[in-house]
Each structure stands twice: as structure tokens, then as C-alpha cells.
């Protein structure tokens, strides 16, 4: 009983650790990549004993210390309890979703076969959608509890946007479920290890390209990143729903923003890019299509898989950051029109076409 509990705790902690490290990297990338795109150097002044580390010290050491030491102001007429809980309500569902993201195949140690996924739920994909639905509360409560016109407006806009794009996200996922016939993320990642025509890894993007695009767009809209960041638009609403937040609570809102970026990246890799799959790597080593094999111990395989997963997640985080600093912001009615009149019919069409193709393939086989 106790070794099982310890192993489960270790898996969950590792998944969280991975998520938070990539989030930290994401914050650093944000600063540096935005600086590169805007032809400037970026923050590089804060230094420890003269070591500035290209701005790493500034972003990862000085900034968090600054946030934590700032005065924590709650507006006079604001609702204290909800003002305090809103950042938590925003961060916790985003972090909880990492429990179902698989970061490796299996680790065989001491006679045990450990499935490298925080929690093995048979309804993993629906758990992801459930946590996305719960993330709306942080926005709407934060906006309302600040007792501020701009915050309320930002909060209502943000939550309306989130619930609109949740629908497109869910429908895009149905196409994936039809293809892989399971809701468990680990099974979906495993199923992408097959080879099509003997040499092409059967990653999700081959079977569901439209769903990938819809999911990526809906995911970026869900996390309220530019080009969908009207709820927190700095030029219009001061800071939208987190205007009245300072210090640690502001840090939590910013953290939840980046954790959602990493989450969208992790989900896109798991569903469409093979997750932890390294092409031609099986549980006991490489099996190249020509017939050559390369045997590897189980631990080396796991390290390769976890590294591959981390690299893919970092790549998609980088992609979202580049998108942020390249595109202008959508107007609110354009945003809603895209969600309801663009992505929703597209994802419905995707579901119908996928179902038709699956039916024909099954009938033909």
C-alpha cells in the first residue's frame, strides 16, 4: 500500500516539477524572444556578483523576489475572501491538469512496471476539459471581487471568451477520440508509436490536422494570450480583471497564464505529436525500419522519452510566445465571431468527416 502511495506521489511531483520548470523557462523565453523580435536586448541589468546570465538572473531570481515583497493591496470596498481566492481558483485547475499528462512510457524498476502518468484516469481527456471549465471561476471572481468597473468588464469578457472557446476545444478533441478510440491520454500517446507504411510514425497530426489547428487556436484563446487577450488588454482596460492585484496574487495570475501556455503545449504534443514518443524507439531500444535494432536499458529509454517530451513542450511554448509577439489583438466581436461562426462549424465538420472515415476504414478492413 505505502510503496504505491509513494510512487504515485513521486510521479505527480515530477509532473508538477516538469511543468513549473518549463513555465520558468517560458517566462525567460518570453522576455528574450520578445526582445529579439522587437530588435532590442531585453532585461539584463540585475546581476549577482556581476553574473547576469543573459537576463536569467533578472527574470528568474529578481522578478519573483520583487513580486513576493511587494505590498499586497486589497481595494477598500472589495470582497476580501473572493479577492483572495480568485488567483488560487485560476492557478489550481491549470496545475491539476498536469496530473493526467503522460511524460514517459513505463519505468521498469525493481520488478515493478510504473506507468509514467500522474493519475491513470480512463476519462483523462474529459478531466482536461473539466479543469478548463473550472478555470473560468478565477477570471470571473477576480473581476467581480475587485469592485472596479474595468476589472468587472475584463472579467466578464474573459469568461465569455473562455466558455466560447471551450466548445471548439472539446469538439476538436472528439475527432481525436474517434481516431484513437480511447479517452486515456497515455493510451493515445502509446498508439502513436505505430508506423504507417513501415517508416512514418503515426502521430496525431497525420490523422487529425484540422483538429490540431482548431485545438491550438482554441487553446491560445482559452489561456487569453495575444491575439486573444482582450480581457487583460493593457491599452484598453488598464489590466483587465487583474487590475487590482499586486504582489503575490498578481504573481499567481501571471503564473497561471504561463502554466496554461505550457499546458496547451503539453496537450498538443501528447495528442498530435506523439507525446513522449521518439520515432522508432520501443520499450527495449530502437527498431529502425530497415531492420536494424539498438538495444537500450529501460532507464535510458525512459530518459530519452522524458527528454523528447520536454523538448517538444518547449518547442510549442516557444511557438506560442512567437505568436504573441507577432500578431495584433483581435477586437471582441471578431473574437466571438471566430469562436462561434468559425471554429465551431469547422470542428463539427471535422467530427463528421472523422466519423465517416473511421466507419469506412472499419467497414473496408
Amino acid at each position, binding site marked *: 500500500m505505502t510503496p504505491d502511495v509513494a510512487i504515485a506521489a513521486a510521479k505527480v511531483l515530477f509532473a508538477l516539477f516538469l511543468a513549473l520548470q518549463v513555465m520558468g523557462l517560458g517566462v525567460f523565453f518570453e522576455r528574450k524572444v520578445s526582445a529579439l523580435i522587437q530588435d532590442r536586448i531585453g532585461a539584463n541589468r540585475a546581476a549577482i556578483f556581476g553574473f547576469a546570465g543573459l537576463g536569467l538572473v533578472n527574470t528568474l531570481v529578481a522578478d519573483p523576489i520583487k513580486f513576493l515583497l511587494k505590498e499586497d493591496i486589497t481595494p477598500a470596498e472589495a470582497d476580501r475572501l473572493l479577492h483572495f481566492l480568485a488567483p488560487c481558483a485560476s492557478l489550481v485547475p491549470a496545475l491539476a491538469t498536469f496530473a493526467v499528462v503522460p511524460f514517459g512510457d513505463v519505468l521498469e524498476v525493481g520488478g515493478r512496471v510504473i506507468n509514467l502518468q500522474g493519475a491513470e484516469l480512463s476519462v483523462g481527456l*474529459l478531466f482536461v476539459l473539466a479543469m478548463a471549465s*473550472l478555470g473560468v471561476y478565477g477570471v470571473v*471572481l477576480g473581476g467581480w471581487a475587485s469592485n472596479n468597473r474595468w476589472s468587472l468588464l475584463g472579467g466578464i469578457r474573459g469568461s465569455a471568451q473562455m466558455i466560447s472557446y471551450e466548445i471548439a476545444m472539446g469538439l476538436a478533441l472528439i475527432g481525436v477520440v474517434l481516431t484513437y478510440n480511447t479517452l486515456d491520454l497515455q493510451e493515445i500517446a502509446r498508439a502513436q508509436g505505430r508506423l504507417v507504411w513501415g517508416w512514418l510514425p503515426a502521430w496525431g497530426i497525420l490523422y487529425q490536422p484540422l483538429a490540431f489547428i482548431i485545438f491550438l487556436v482554441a487553446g491560445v484563446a482559452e489561456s487569453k494570450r495575444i491575439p486573444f487577450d482582450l480581457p487583460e488588454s493593457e491599452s484598453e482596460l488598464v489590466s483587465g480583471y487583474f487590475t487590482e492585484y499586486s504582489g503575490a496574487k498578481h504573481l499567481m495570475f501571471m503564473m497561471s497564464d504561463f502554466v496554461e501556455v505550457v499546458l496547451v503545449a503539453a496537450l498538443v504534443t501528447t495528442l498530435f505529436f506523439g507525446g513522449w514518443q521518439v520515432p522508432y524507439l520501443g520499450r527495449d531500444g530502437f527498431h529502425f525500419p530497415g531492420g536494424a535494432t539498438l538495444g537500450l536499458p529501460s532507464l535510458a529509454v525512459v530518459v530519452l522519452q522524458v527528454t523528447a517530451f520536454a523538448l517538444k513542450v518547449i518547442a510549442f511554448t516557444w511557438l506560442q510566445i512567437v505568436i504573441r509577439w507577432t500578431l495584433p489583438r483581435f477586437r471582441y466581436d471578431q473574437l466571438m465571431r471566430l469562436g462561434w461562426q468559425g471554429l465551431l462549424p469547422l470542428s463539427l465538420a471535422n467530427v463528421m468527416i472523422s466519423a465517416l472515415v473511421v466507419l469506412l476504414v472499419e467497414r473496408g478492413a
Partner: protein
Amino acid sequence: MSALIFLLLAALVLAAALTVVVHPSPVYSACALVVTLFLLSVFFVALDAQLVAVLQVIVYAGAIVVLFLFVIMLLNLTQTEPRPTAGAPLVAVAVGGGVAVVALVATVLRRVAPPGTPVLPAGFGDTAALGRRLFTAYLLPFELTSVLLLVAIVGAVGLAKRRP
């Protein structure tokens, strides 16, 4: 789920439900409702109904209560009632309610024969099992429900539209 965990969760659910009904501010009632629904979802997981549990969070806690919160906030319905029920009517309802609860619980517990240990088929509570039941025996109610949802959408949009 051991008896201790059940009692703890049941106490939390009842506390949250009482907050929904008793708290003067509707926003706090809505937040307490979310907590109640989430805790009920935990009970569903313990009762081998995983799909229903997740659907409860997605549909109830994640959509219906958000709708409530929208309406409360957009229309600023946070004023408490001017004349809250107090005095004799409150005592009457509370006593009557208490008696009703006791009667309900006693009836339920007396009439239900303690069942034996159930033999659950493999995959009980799974998506596949629910889907199989839903699309064979309950196909007609399923199709009628989709019509019902369409009617509800049209009705809601029509009722809430701003008349020019």
C-alpha cells in the same frame, strides 16, 4: 472509501449546501454551490461512475453555475432581500423542514432492504458502458433531449433579447 472519509466529505457537502441556502449574498451562494457540486462529483467517483463524475464537473460546475454567476454579476443582483423571512414563519419552516427531513430519512432507511454485495460487470461506469446503454435502450430519450436543448436555446435567446 472508508467510513471516515465518507463522513468527512458528507459533512463538507452539507456545510456547503447550507451555505447556498442561508448566505445573504447570491455570489457566495453560487460559490458554495460549486463546492457542493464538486464534492458530489467526488462521491460519484467513489460509486464507480467516473464518466458521470467528470460530466458533473464539466456541465454543472463548469457551465450552469458560471451562467448563474454571469447573470448575478451582469445585472448586479447582489442586494440582499429587503425583508428576509424572520420570526414566526422562519421558525415554522425550520421546524417543519426538520420534521420532514427526519421523516424522509426514516422512510428511506426503513423501506430499502440492505442489498448484498453487488456483482459489478467489468467496465462498470466506463464511457463505453454508458454509451452502449445510451445508444441502444435510451436512444429515443437521447434524440428527444437534443430537441429539448434546441428549444431551450431558442427560448433563452428569444426571451433575453433586447427589444428595439
